[in-house]
């Protein structure tokens, strides 16, 4: 059944009736989601609402039981164009022991590299550009494990950017990140969206990103309970971040328009 309209060439990501089970339990239940080119979408909801599971199934990291997912118009099972996707997993999920910042960032270039071929000039330029985009150039030879949480997060974002993706998927990029780094990340994401990239970001609360996101999708118990633009002092956002424990940064909330 032609459930997803293929004529929409501007569609970056589309899910229809997506159902994901983990250990026999339906965790994501019949979700419809669409991200258009250049859109910044926040995926919100409390702990256990299924945010990370949804993101992981959209990226083919876990299988889904029912429904359909398309990335850049291609059904997920046949999707091969991975350089177009940049993924920033939750920081706690990475197990890097000994690696320099530059090496970690370079590992994000793999999708654009051939086997047995060393880094080429274009790869090196991309690595330098990504490092400077997250302002980590002067720390490129530091051990990742010795950096602060915010700095590690910036490195992981650089690792996703270095492949020059069109869609950036970030899973809780603000968790455990100090305020200056949060602001720097927000500015970086705003620049990326302004440059025409699409962004899907999993968040506990919109916080410093309120000026950036076009739409907030709120999950509860594996279902979408709201999907729409951020509203000033909207009830929905309060509902969406009911479990989060950071102070709410309301500066810029009322002026939360996206000028692009």
């Amino acid at each position: 059944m032609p459930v997803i309209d293929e004529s929409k060439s501007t569609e970056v990501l589309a899910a229809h009736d997506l159902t994901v089970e983990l250990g026999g339990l339906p965790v994501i239940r019949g979700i419809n989601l669409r991200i258009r080119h250049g859109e910044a979408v926040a995926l919100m909801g409390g702990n256990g609402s299924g945010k990370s599971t949804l993101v992981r199934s959209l990226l083919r990291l876990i299988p889904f039981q029912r429904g359909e997912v398309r990335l850049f118009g291609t059904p997920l099972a046949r999707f091969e164009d991975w350089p177009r996707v940049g993924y920033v997993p939750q920081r706690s999920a990475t197990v890097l022991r000994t690696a320099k910042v530059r090496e970690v960032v370079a590992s994000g270039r793999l999708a654009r590299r051939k086997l047995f071929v060393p880094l080429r000039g274009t790869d090196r330029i991309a690595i330098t550009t990504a490092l400077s985009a997250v302002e980590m150039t002067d720390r490129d030879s530091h051990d990742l494990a010795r950096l602060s949480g915010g700095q590690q997060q910036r490195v992981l974002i650089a690792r996703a950017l270095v492949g020059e993706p069109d869609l950036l998927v970030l899973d809780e990029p603000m968790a455990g990140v100090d305020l200056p780094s949060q602001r720097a990340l927000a500015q970086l994401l705003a620049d990326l969206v302004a440059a025409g990239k699409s962004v899907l970001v999993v968040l506990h609360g919109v916080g410093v990103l309120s000026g950036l996101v076009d739409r907030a999708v709120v999950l509860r118990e594996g279902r979408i309970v709201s999907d729409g633009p951020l509203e000033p002092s909207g009830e929905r956002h309060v509902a969406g971040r009911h479990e989060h424990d950071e102070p709410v940064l309301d500066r810029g909330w009322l002026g939360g328009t996206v000028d692009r």
Partner: protein
Amino acid sequence: MTELLTLPFMQRALFAALITGLMAPAIGTYIVQRRLSLLGDGLGHVAIAGVGLALITGQAPLLLAVIVCVAGALIVEILRQQGKASGDVGLAILFYGGLAAGVLMSGIAGAGAAALSGYLFGSLTTVSRTDLILVGILAVAVLVPTVGLSPQLFAVCSDEDFARVQGQKVRLYNLLIVALAAVTVTLAMRTVGLLLVSALMVVPVAAAQNLVRGFYSALGCAMALGVAVSVGGAAGSYYADSPPGALIVVFAIAVFALTLPLGALLRRRRQPRLELPESIDEETVAVPHVGAGAHPHQHGPGCGHPYVQHGDHPDFIHEGHRHAEHADHYDEH
């Protein structure tokens, strides 16, 4: 020393030691990154079953042990990928089953457990000419992907999910790593021996991580240290008249012990200047002003107290306090 090099059996033994010293730390770097430091030990036990099978069938031990060990390694990895190896129990059964089967088959073959000892701890005199050819071929087969595919293997070992989203065939690379480890373990049976090979996969890597920073530098450094200790150990064991494996591992651990103080020194010199991040609520809640009381000591760049950058000023760290200069006194920060 020159006497050593004129003996044909020592030439072969030293060549085998050189190859082992290169291979074991190279593949060991990935094994350590994946936190599977004891995998080599388990695979050594599986290889013993291959040796036992060779003794009972009268075949050349090396080739048969390679085949058995690679098969065992792939089974372990497939079970792990499918989530069927429940914790460590499945692995333990496979590994100790391998050891028991090897000893049993060796006994039935009439060779007894003593015949295995040359494989367990290495033996200089037993590296044959045909062994050496096989060692050479398999060493190339292991080293080419281990070094040539290092960007892919590094990505898979450090962050599987991220590697998958880059379209990397993560399961295939994981199988490749254990298969390469299995070949390495088996090739090392004449030099360090099957029971001690795991030390050569792990200890030079740990020593290298003390000395140098970064994954690729550690890979190169570990291989250099591996060659030094295994060639040195093989040569030394000729004079000590002991199994080479023992001396190789003793050398490796001695090198590791030396790198501990050296590494601490290097780290202190490379230590980036510490910086305190602004706390989230700093702007909304005023930090109370707390004086440090009577403080006769004058802090300064050369006063010996470490300091961290805190916003626009340095805080001197002093018996668990952070002292910041404020007019004519110090504040507690």
